[in-house]
C-alpha cells in the first residue's frame, strides 16, 4: 500500500464533520474544510483526469488555483459545470464530480491511443495535414478534432431558473492584493494611517505563506486581530483579484462561503469592481515545475502543494514520497512530512549540498546531491524514479509512491504584468522580477522577489509606508509582535529540464513537451509568442502559471539566447478563469436592458395591447393578442373613417429656451425656425455635418425664445446629444437652455375626420379650421389639465396632438376616449400608425436610415438657401446629388392580390440580377386596394409609372410592382388641413 492518505488533523479540517461525495461514481468521504483535491488524496485517489491531447493519466499537481491537471466536471442541480479545479473546490455534502476528457472511463481511455501515436502528432501537426481531399477537412477531420479537443463537457438546462448574480462596486484608497506576510503587514500599516484599505485574499484564510510555518502563528493572529480593529480596513477573503484595468480599476471575484451563499439566496459568487487610488501587489510566489520525462505521472506534485495538503488538511501526498528540488524552500514539505511520521524515500537535488540537505540527512532521509530525476516509473501512479548524474548517466532507481518537485519559486506577477510591469531577470533566483512605475502601483514581498517571510513582512511594511506617503499620510508606528527570523538559504541552482527518453512536459494541460518547443524553433516559430501559438504552450486554463518560465527557458536554450531575451508570457485578465454568470452580474436575460414604460402602460395592458420593444421602450403594437393584419387594419380603418387615438409619448421632446433659441435652431436644422410665428409648428430636418439626414420632426414655437422640438423615438438620445454637443462647442456663444422633457409629457395623437369633434370639448380654445389651422400650436388647458395642443398629423388625417404632464395622462386619455365614444374612437398601436404613415408617404427610420439625403427623400425644398446650417456645405457634393441615387417612391403590386415584403430588391425585368433599390416599408392598405409600400429606388422619381419586379429570393418571391409617387394618399394635404 502506498499513495496519499490523511494522516492527521489539518488546520482546516481538524475536528470537522465528515462529508459524503461522489467521484466518478465512487462514494467517498471527506471532511468539512477539505477541497475536493484534499479529499480525493485523503481517499488515496491519485488519478483525476486525462490530458488534453495525449489523454495521459493526470493527478493533482498543486493546491491552488494554478492547477493545470486536476480539473473536474461538477454535476449540479441545473447541469454540468466543466473545468473546476479540484484544488480550490470546497467539499460539500453530496458533491458529485467526474473526471474529464476520457472515454469510456478514467482508467481506460480510448483516445489515449493519441499518446502512442504521439510521434506522428507533433505540435502544429494539423497545419500540415488534413487538407485533402478538399471536402474532408470540414466533414471529417474537423469534427474529429473538435470532439477530441475541449476539456470538460458543459450542459445545462434552458429553464430560466436564473442563478442569482451580483456585481458590487467597491472604493478604497488602497487595494492590497494578497494577505500573506507582506500583505498583512502592509494593510496594518495603511489602516493605521487612517487610509481606506481593501485587503483581498483569494484563500479562505488570511496568511499566505505564514499559514505553512507554525512559527508565524502568533504574528499572524496578532495582525489579524489588529486589522479587525482598524475601522478603515476591509478584509475580503475568498476574493481573487482577476484583472487590472488601469485608472485604479480592478475586477475581483468573491466566492461566497456556504453560510453567506444561503443568506443571499444561493448566490455563489460576487463580482467586485474595485476603484482605488493606489494598489499594492503582495501576491507572493508560485512554485514552478521541472521538465523531466514522466513529470506528469499521477503522484508527481509540487513540493509546496504537498506542504499545503499536510498543514491544511492533514493529508500526506504519499506514504513514501521522494523530493526532487533545486532549492531550500522545497525541503519544508519534506520536513513537515517527516515530522508527521511519513517516511521519505529520499531527496534528489542537483546541488552537491545545501543547508536543508544536511538537516534532511540528520533526520535520516537519504539525500542524493548533484543528481537529477531522469525518468519516472509508473503510468497511473509513481512507483519509482530513476536517479541520474548531472550528465544524465543513470545512478540508480529509487522506489517511491510519490514525487514532490520544485524548480524554485517565482513572483506571482500576473497582475503586475497586466499593469505593464517590466520584467528584470534575476540570476540568483532564476526568475523574472516585475517592476512597476510608481504611478502604476507598488509590489511587495515575494511578488517582487523578496525571499523569506520576515523579509516579505518588512517589505510589505516599507511599501505601505511609501504608499501612505504618496497619499499624504504619515504612517503611525505599529506595535506588533516580532517576526521569526528567516532561515539562511543556500543558493538555488537553476534547473529547467532533464533530458531523457520520454515526454517532458512544460504545459501539463495542453500537453506541450520540451520537444515540441524545439520543433517550433526548427520551424521558425522561435519568438515566444509564435511558439506559444504554434504549440499552444501557456494557453490552457492555468495560463502557464507553473510551467511558463520553464518553457521559456527551454525555448531560450533551443535558440541559444539568454532567457532574458526570450522574456515571459504576456499577462492578460483573468488571473483565474471567471464564470460567465459572475462576470455578467444581474443584468441578464429579462433584466438585460431596463424597460422604459409609458405613463399609460397599465391602461394599454388592460386594453389588451401586444407590446413591442422599441429601444428601451415598451410600446403597444396593436390592441389585440391575435396574429395577423386584421386587428391592425381595423385600428387604421377607424382613423381613416372616424377617429383613433394613439400614444406617441415615446417621441423625443426637447425644450429649447433662451434669447438665442431661434438662431440655434436655424443652425441645427436645415430649414429655418426663426421665421416660425409664435403659436406655430414647422416640420424640420436635421443633417449631419456630412450632409446626410440625421432626424426629422416638428418643432413648435411657444414664445419668441421658447421652442419645443420633437424627435423620432429611435433618435431621441442621439439628437439631444447632437444638440448639446454643438451648443457647448460650435455654438458656445449662444445663450440657450436645452432640457430633456421626454418623460414629463405624455403625448397623444387624435386622428381622423372626427378628431376635431373629439378634442373640442376638452378645451376652451377655438380649434376650428380657421382659428386653429394645420400647424397651429397652443398652450392650453386640456380636460382641466395645463397642456399643449398641436395640430400636426403623421397619419395624413385631420389630427391633433395633445401633450399633458405624464402624471395626468390617464385622466386626459380617458377624457378623450369618453369624448370620442360617440364616434367609436379606437386606440391604435404602432402597426396601425405605420400603415397610416406609409399610405401617406411619411418617413421613419426605415427611410431615414443614415444613408439618405434630403433630396433622396424628396425633402430638398426644405433646405434653406440663406444662412449656414450643419451639413449645408457637404450636402452639395456631387456624390450626394448624383442622378442614380436611391430616391423615395411609392410602390403597389401590379396584381392587387399580391403582397409586398420589406427588404425585397427592386429590379427591372430586363436585368433581374441588378438591384435598383429596395422596399423599406409595406402594408396592406386601407385606402387602396391591396398592399402599398415605400421604396428607395435608383433615380426613383424619374421612374414613376414604371413597372419593376420586387424580388425576395430568400423567400422565393417575386412580385411585379408599379412605381408611384411617395405621396400616395391625399397629395394635396386637404385632409390634414380640413
Amino acid at each position, binding site marked *: 500500500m502506498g499513495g496519499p492518505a490523511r494522516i492527521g488533523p489539518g488546520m482546516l479540517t481538524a475536528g470537522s464533520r465528515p462529508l459524503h461525495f461522489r467521484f466518478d461514481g465512487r462514494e467517498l468521504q471527506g471532511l468539512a474544510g477539505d477541497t475536493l483535491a484534499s479529499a480525493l488524496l485523503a481517499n488515496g485517489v491519485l488519478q483525476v483526469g486525462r490530458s488534453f491531447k495525449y489523454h495521459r493519466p493526470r493527478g493533482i499537481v498543486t493546491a491552488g488555483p494554478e492547477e493545470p491537471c486536476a480539473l473536474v466536471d461538477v454535476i449540479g442541480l441545473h447541469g454540468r459545470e466543466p473545468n473546476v479545479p479540484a484544488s480550490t473546490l470546497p467539499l460539500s455534502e453530496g458533491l458529485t464530480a467526474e473526471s474529464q476528457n476520457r472515454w469510456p472511463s478514467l482508467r481506460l481511455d480510448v483516445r489515449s491511443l493519441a499518446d502512442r501515436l504521439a510521434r506522428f502528432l507533433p505540435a502544429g501537426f494539423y497545419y500540415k495535414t488534413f487538407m485533402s481531399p478538399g471536402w474532408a477537412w470540414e466533414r471529417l477531420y474537423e469534427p474529429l478534432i473538435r470532439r477530441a479537443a475541449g476539456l470538460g463537457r458543459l450542459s445545462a438546462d434552458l429553464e430560466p431558473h436564473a442563478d442569482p448574480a451580483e456585481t458590487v462596486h467597491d472604493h478604497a484608497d488602497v487595494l492590497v492584493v494578497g494577505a500573506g506576510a507582506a500583505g498583512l503587514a502592509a494593510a496594518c500599516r495603511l489602516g493605521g494611517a487612517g487610509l481606506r484599505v481593501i485587503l483581498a485574499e483569494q484563500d479562505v484564510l488570511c496568511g499566505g505563506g505564514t499559514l505553512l510555518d507554525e512559527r508565524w502563528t502568533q504574528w499572524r493572529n496578532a495582525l489579524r486581530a489588529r486589522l479587525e480593529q482598524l475601522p478603515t480596513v476591509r478584509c475580503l477573503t475568498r476574493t481573487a483579484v482577476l484583472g487590472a484595468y488601469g*485608472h*485604479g*480599476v480592478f475586477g475581483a471575484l468573491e466566492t461566497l462561503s456556504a453560510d453567506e451563499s444561503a443568506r443571499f439566496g444561493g448566490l455563489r459568487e460576487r463580482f467586485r469592481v474595485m476603484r482605488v487610488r493606489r494598489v499594492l501587489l503582495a501576491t507572493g510566489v508560485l512554485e514552478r515545475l521541472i521538465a523531466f520525462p514522466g513529470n506528469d505521472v499521477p503522484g508527481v506534485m509540487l513540493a509546496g502543494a504537498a506542504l499545503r495538503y499536510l498543514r491544511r488538511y492533514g493529508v500526506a501526498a504519499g506514504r513514501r514520497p521522494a523530493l526532487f528540488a533545486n532549492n531550500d524552500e522545497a525541503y519544508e514539505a519534506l520536513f513537515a512530512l517527516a515530522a508527521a511520521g511519513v517516511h521519505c524515500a529520499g531527496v534528489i537535488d542537483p546541488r552537491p549540498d545545501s543547508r536543508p540537505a544536511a538537516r534532511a540527512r540528520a533526520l535520516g532521509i537519504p539525500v542524493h546531491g548533484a543528481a537529477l530525476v531522469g525518468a519516472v516509473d509508473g503510468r497511473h501512479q509513481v512507483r519509482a524514479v530513476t536517479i541520474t548524474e548531472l550528465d544524465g548517466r543513470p545512478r540508480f532507481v529509487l522506489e517511491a509512491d510519490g514525487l514532490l518537485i520544485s524548480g524554485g519559486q517565482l513572483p506571482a506577477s500576473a497582475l503586475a504584468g497586466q499593469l505593464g510591469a517590466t520584467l528584470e531577470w534575476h540570476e540568483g533566483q532564476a526568475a523574472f522580477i516585475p517592476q512597476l512605475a510608481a504611478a502604476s502601483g507598488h509590489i511587495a514581498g515575494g511578488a517582487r522577489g523578496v525571499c523569506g517571510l520576515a523579509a516579505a513582512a518588512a517589505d510589505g511594511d516599507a511599501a505601505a509606508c511609501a504608499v501612505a506617503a504618496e497619499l499624504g499620510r504619515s504612517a503611525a508606528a505599529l506595535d506588533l509582535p516580532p517576526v521569526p527570523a528567516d532561515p539562511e538559504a543556500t543558493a538555488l541552482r537553476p534547473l529547467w529540464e532533464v533530458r531523457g527518453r520520454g515526454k517532458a512536459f512544460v504545459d501539463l494541460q495542453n500537453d506541450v513537451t520540451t520537444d515540441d518547443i524545439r520543433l517550433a524553433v526548427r520551424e521558425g516559430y522561435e519568438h515566444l509568442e509564435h511558439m506559444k501559438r504554434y504549440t499552444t504552450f501557456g494557453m490552457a486554463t492555468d495560463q502557464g502559471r507553473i510551467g511558463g518560465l520553464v518553457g521559456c527557458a527551454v525555448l531560450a536554450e533551443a535558440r541559444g539566447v539568454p532567457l532574458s531575451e526570450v522574456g515571459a508570457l504576456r499577462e492578460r485578465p483573468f488571473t483565474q478563469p471567471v464564470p460567465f454568470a459572475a462576470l455578467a452580474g444581474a443584468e441578464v436575460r429579462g433584466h438585460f436592458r431596463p424597460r422604459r414604460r409609458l405613463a399609460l402602460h397599465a391602461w394599454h395592458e388592460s386594453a389588451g395591447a401586444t407590446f413591442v420593444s422599441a429601444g428601451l421602450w415598451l410600446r403597444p403594437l396593436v390592441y389585440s393578442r391575435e396574429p395577423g393584419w386584421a386587428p391592425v387594419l381595423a385600428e387604421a380603418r377607424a382613423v381613416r373613417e372616424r377617429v383613433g387615438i394613439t400614444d406617441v409619448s415615446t417621441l423625443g421632446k426637447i425644450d429649447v429656451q433662451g434669447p438665442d433659441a431661434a438662431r440655434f435652431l436655424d443652425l441645427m436644422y436645415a430649414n429655418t425656425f426663426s421665421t416660425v410665428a409664435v403659436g406655430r409648428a414647422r416640420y424640420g430636418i436635421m443633417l449631419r*455635418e456630412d450632409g446626410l439626414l440625421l432626424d426629422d420632426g416638428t418643432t413648435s414655437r411657444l414664445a419668441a425664445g421658447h421652442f419645443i422640438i420633437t424627435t423620432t423615438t429611435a433618435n431621441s438620445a442621439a439628437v439631444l446629444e447632437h444638440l448639446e*454637443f454643438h451648443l*457647448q462647442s460650435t455654438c458656445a456663444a449662444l445663450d440657450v437652455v436645452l432640457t430633456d422633457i421626454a418623460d414629463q409629457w405624455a403625448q397623444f395623437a387624435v386622428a381622423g375626420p372626427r378628431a376635431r369633434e373629439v378634442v373640442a370639448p376638452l378645451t376652451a380654445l377655438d380649434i376650428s379650421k380657421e382659428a386653429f389651422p394645420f400647424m397651429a400650436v397652443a398652450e392650453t388647458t386640456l380636460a382641466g389639465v395645463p397642456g399643449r395642443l398641436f395640430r400636426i398629423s403623421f397619419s395624413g388625417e385631420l389630427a391633433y396632438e395633445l401633450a399633458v404632464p405624464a402624471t395626468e395622462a390617464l385622466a386626459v386619455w380617458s377624457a378623450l376616449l369618453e369624448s370620442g365614444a360617440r364616434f367609436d374612437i379606437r386606440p391604435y398601436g404602432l402597426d396601425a400608425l405605420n400603415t397610416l404613415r406609409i399610405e401617406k408617404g411619411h418617413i421613419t427610420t426605415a427611410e431615414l436610415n443614415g444613408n439618405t439625403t434630403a433630396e433622396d427623400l424628396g425633402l430638398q425644398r426644405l433646405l434653406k438657401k440663406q444662412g*449656414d446650417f450643419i451639413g449645408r*456645405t*457637404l450636402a452639395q457634393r456631387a456624390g450626394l446629388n448624383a442622378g442614380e441615387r436611391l430616391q423615395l417612391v411609392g410602390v403597389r403590386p401590379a396584381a392587387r392580390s399580391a403582397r409586398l415584403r420589406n427588404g425585397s430588391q427592386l429590379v427591372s425585368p430586363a436585368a433581374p440580377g441588378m438591384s435598383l433599390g429596395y422596399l423599406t416599408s409595406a402594408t396592406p392598405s386601407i385606402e387602396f386596394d391591396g398592399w402599398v409600400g415605400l421604396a428607395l429606388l435608383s433615380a426613383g422619381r424619374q421612374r414613376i409609372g414604371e413597372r419593376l419586379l420586387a424580388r425576395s429570393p430568400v423567400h422565393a418571391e417575386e412580385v411585379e410592382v408599379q412605381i408611384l409617387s411617395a405621396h400616395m394618399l391625399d397629395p394635396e394635404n386637404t385632409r390634414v388641413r380640413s
Partner: protein
Amino acid sequence: MLRIPCPWCGLRDESEFRYRGDAGRPRPAAEAGLDAFNTHVYERDNPRDWHTEWWLHIAGCRRLLRVVRHTLTHEIRSVEAASQPQGAERGR
C-alpha cells in the same frame, strides 16, 4: 478603462460619457468651402500621442469636456469644461 475627472462631478467611469472625437477640429466658417469641410469631417490626426478630445458627460452634468489624454498610455493630463457656464461655482 478610463476614469475621467469631471470638473463638476469628480472622477467618473468612461461609461458615463459619450466620446465626441478629436477636439482640435473647429467647425470651419460657413463659407469656407468644400475642401475645408471635407477636411474637417473626414481627416484625423489620430496620433499615437497626446490627443485633445471631446467627452460629453451624458450621465452626469451633461457638460462637454475637453480632455487631453495619451492614446497609448491613457494617462489623462487635463480636463476642462468646453465652455464655462458663467458664474457656476465648482462643486467637488
